[in-house]
């Protein structure tokens, strides 16, 4: 089992003043390393509207490279605008995953729309930044990864990586809307696509990670990290129903691969679980693993899927 030393919660959105679009939630952290700081992107929300409905934005905090638990700055505005009337990202841009490509920074993000029979749908958008990741321009008004016969809805949670001259996108694809206690709950599984240019994608068209806790287990945040000759994937998973509390809520899983296509799941190695008390006592989710100055960190969410912010853990030892 990997051993993670929890460093505590790093960022609390409720502590930020003067930003009406950043009142609650700091979800799906994703890091971009600079000389003196690490820019950690996250997704947040203004207060819910009169009907209790949220929109979501993506933004960042800069943390000290020498001590990444120390917040230096918070972005003054969201990195992306919401889509226009009827567009796939009209009601949210969540989550976002970034990578450098030459002098630009690329972002892949989940765009949210609202539906009548089910609460929402998600598709993956693409945007680029020419100002070191402060603002992003969308590549088009539509999504970069289309729905297909085997991936009918909820294409979300993108994670972008570049290995061996190829772009890889890990994401989740909806399998079914399952009626639970009178409401439809989404079931989604981890999938993958590859591309020479980051725009034209070939889908693997299969579930990468076998379901463990139940057939309708939902899987999210497929975060792939290369270390010691193999690929390590940390992700999160939950039960299909009554998952908003400790009992059935998100936990962090683990799988590894030699070739990026065949993955062996072994959650017992993940090594990061809920605490007995505190901000991550009910659930742990949306892991993001990154290396910084010879050390490996995991950013992750705690209770209520990041409503009160994200935290960090540091690996003791290495990933093998």
């Amino acid at each position, binding site marked *: 089992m990997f051993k993670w030393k929890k460093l505590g919660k790093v960022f609390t959105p409720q502590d930020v003043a003067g930003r009406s679009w950043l009142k609650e939630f700091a979800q799906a952290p994703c890091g971009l390393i600079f000389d003196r700081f690490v820019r950690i992107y996250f997704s947040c929300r203004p207060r819910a509207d009169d009907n209790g409905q949220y929109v979501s934005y993506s933004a960042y905090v800069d943390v000290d490279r020498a001590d990444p638990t120390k917040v230096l700055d918070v972005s003054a505005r969201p990195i992306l605008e919401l889509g226009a009337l*009827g567009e796939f990202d009209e009601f949210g841009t969540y989550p976002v995953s970034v990578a450098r490509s030459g002098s630009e920074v690329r972002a892949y993000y989940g765009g949210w729309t609202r*539906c009548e029979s089910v609460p929402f749908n998600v598709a993956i958008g693409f945007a680029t930044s020419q100002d070191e990741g402060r603002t992003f321009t969308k590549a088009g008004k*539509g999504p970069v990864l289309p729905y297909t*016969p085997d991936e*009918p809805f909820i294409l979300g949670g993108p994670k972008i990586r570049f290995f061996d001259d190829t772009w890889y996108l890990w994401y989740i694809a909806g399998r079914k809307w399952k009626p639970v206690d009178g409401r439809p709950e989404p079931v989604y599984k981890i999938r993958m696509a590859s591309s020479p240019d980051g725009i034209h994608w070939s889908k693997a068209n299969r579930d990468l990670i076998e379901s463990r806790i139940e057939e309708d287990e939902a899987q999210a945040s497929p975060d792939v990290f290369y270390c010691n000759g193999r690929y390590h994937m940390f992700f999160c998973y939950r039960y299909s129903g009554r998952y908003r509390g400790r009992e059935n809520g998100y936990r962090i899983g683990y799988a590894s691969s030699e070739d990026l296509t065949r993955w062996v799941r072994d959650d017992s190695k993940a090594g990061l679980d809920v605490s007995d008390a505190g901000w991550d006592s009910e659930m742990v989710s949306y892991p993001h693993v990154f290396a910084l100055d010879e050390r490996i960190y995991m950013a992750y969410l705690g209770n209520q899927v990041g409503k009160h912010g994200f935290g960090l853990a540091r690996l003791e030892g290495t990933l093998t």
Partner: protein
Amino acid sequence: MKWKKLGKIFDPTKFDLPDGCAEFAQSPQALVFGDFVRIYFSTRSVDKANGKYLSHVAFVDMDEAMREVIAVSRHTVIELGKLGCFDEHGIFPMNVLRHGGRVLGYTCGWSRRVSVSVDTAIGLAISRDDGRTFQRIGDGPVLAASLREPCLVGDPFVGVFGNVHHMWYIFGTGWKKFSADAAPDRTYKIGHAVSNDGVNWVKEEGRRIIDDRLGADESQALPSVIRIGRTYHMFFCYRQSHDFRTNRSRSYRIGHAHSDDLADWTRNDDDPGLDVTEGDWDSDMLCYPHAFECRGKVYLLYNGNEFGRYGFGLAVLE
């Protein structure tokens, strides 16, 4: 070339329809059999949950002279999509063709949205009983929104020419409120994609292949392509993007373009032209054309007033 109108040939209110449908026979599309012609169309039931429409596919078999109704389908031709899927709230239209010993159905699936009324995408279903019923190849679409085709991918027409599958279809360019108290209206244009297998498609990605006649707010719909001699002809319908439902000066008309190479299209709505007839069933609107050949004659199926609420008619090329 000139169209000769043969009048309305099918009125859905005079027959028992499947799936609880009562009115509408929209977007008629022909599949020619040995001694009859099966015409698929979309008809409507009312959703008990909220009073909104659900579109279902049905068909009518007509004699090869296109005069007599032989039978109307009484069964479910294709089920609507599952909860949350792109075709949950309707299939309208379905384009049917024979290829490789099978009958293929390319569907335009509808699902409802909150801030705008609907989105659509294109699915594929296959019939194993010669066009009586169809089963989809998956819960999701084969052609859907993409970077430069952001919404409302629909109205497929597939033709196989020179071993290449061609699909002409429409994509939305955006939604707009044309006045403060109006519901949002959409604009769509005709696009093109190709495929080797009919399942995996490569779009031209946002290229509008037919010039606008009414300007940027022209909506173009339901392309239908047929080869006559050495020339390919496309029939489609077009209208203004708002105030088009009851204002006959802004409602659907039939458009036409021709091409020698399936790449470049020259628009020429008047040759052959088809216009409204004063005082008749198609006095205010002409829409959803479908061209096909039967026994050496070229026909055009189309809808008239009220988007086909009371059926469809036929014209023959002279």
